[in-house]
């Protein structure tokens, strides 16, 4: 059993049709492979109806600007759905026990040897802005190579 890490992003999405109803957030960079990835969303009491918040877990793609501090585009969808509504809801939206590659990168638009971003795209379908919380958890794997 290795070391685990956890990072939480606070995400504010404008109302549907607003400037930023769709936002991407991502896991932290790492120089070693990962496994046992888990991604959770807490609706912070603002998602009250099913279908109001859609999510899409994406691996890969590219950083359009500064990696981990910019815009991300593309990638391969691993799983997508909408979270169930409630006065408050927290849901694990994705887990995998596969090995995930290192995701540190050389620079914008240049993944080269070690770039494989782990990204969650959120889309607000509500007529009002919402703020939710996305948590990434994973186990860091030691290297012997």
């Amino acid at each position, binding site marked *: 059993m290795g070391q685990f890490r956890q990072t939480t992003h606070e995400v504010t999405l404008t109302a549907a049709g607003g400037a930023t109803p769709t936002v991407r957030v991502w896991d932290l960079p790492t120089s070693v492979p990962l496994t046992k990835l888990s991604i959770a969303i807490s609706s912070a009491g603002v998602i009250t109806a099913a279908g109001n918040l859609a999510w899409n877990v994406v691996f890969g793609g590219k*950083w359009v600007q500064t990696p981990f501090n910019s815009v991300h585009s593309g990638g391969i969808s691993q799983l997508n759905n909408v979270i169930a509504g409630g006065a408050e809801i927290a849901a694990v939206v994705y887990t995998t026990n596969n090995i995930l590659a290192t995701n540190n990168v050389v620079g914008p638009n240049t993944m080269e040897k070690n770039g494989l971003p782990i990204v969650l795209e959120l889309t607000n379908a509500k007529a009002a802005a919402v703020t939710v919380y996305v948590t990434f958890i994973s186990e860091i794997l030691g290297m*012997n*190579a």
Partner: protein
Amino acid sequence: MGQFRQTVKTVTLSATGGATDVVRVWDAASSVPITKLAITISSGHEVAPAGDLDYDVLYGGGWCGTPFDPDTTHIGGVSQASGTITGSAEIAQYLHTDTDILPANNAAGPNSMRLYGFPIVVELTNDKVVPVTVYVTFISEILGTHY
């Protein structure tokens, strides 16, 4: 949880119809079994439209020259997954994952795998009219053995 290893191959393919528009690369040699294999590719910012780069993940096959040597040739094998990478200015993606236990892949010699030969190979085919350089990463967990 065992130790993991990672190896990255830089692959340059000539333009479609060129001398090296199809190239095979492989995981590093191992004298013990491995598991939790993951193979990824980064397009190196050169594969733009979808369909410009095809891949085929192969297990087994034969070495025609010195096993694992960068200048050797690998032929045959059994396809595990194949497709084309999605294009964009840059793209990174998984080609293949496998949590099965895979045999040791060190080999006795050219065309003679004998007891321990089980290459893990990716074949790349460039469909572009210009050369491209991409990066293929192999990650796996090394399993101890007890004879």
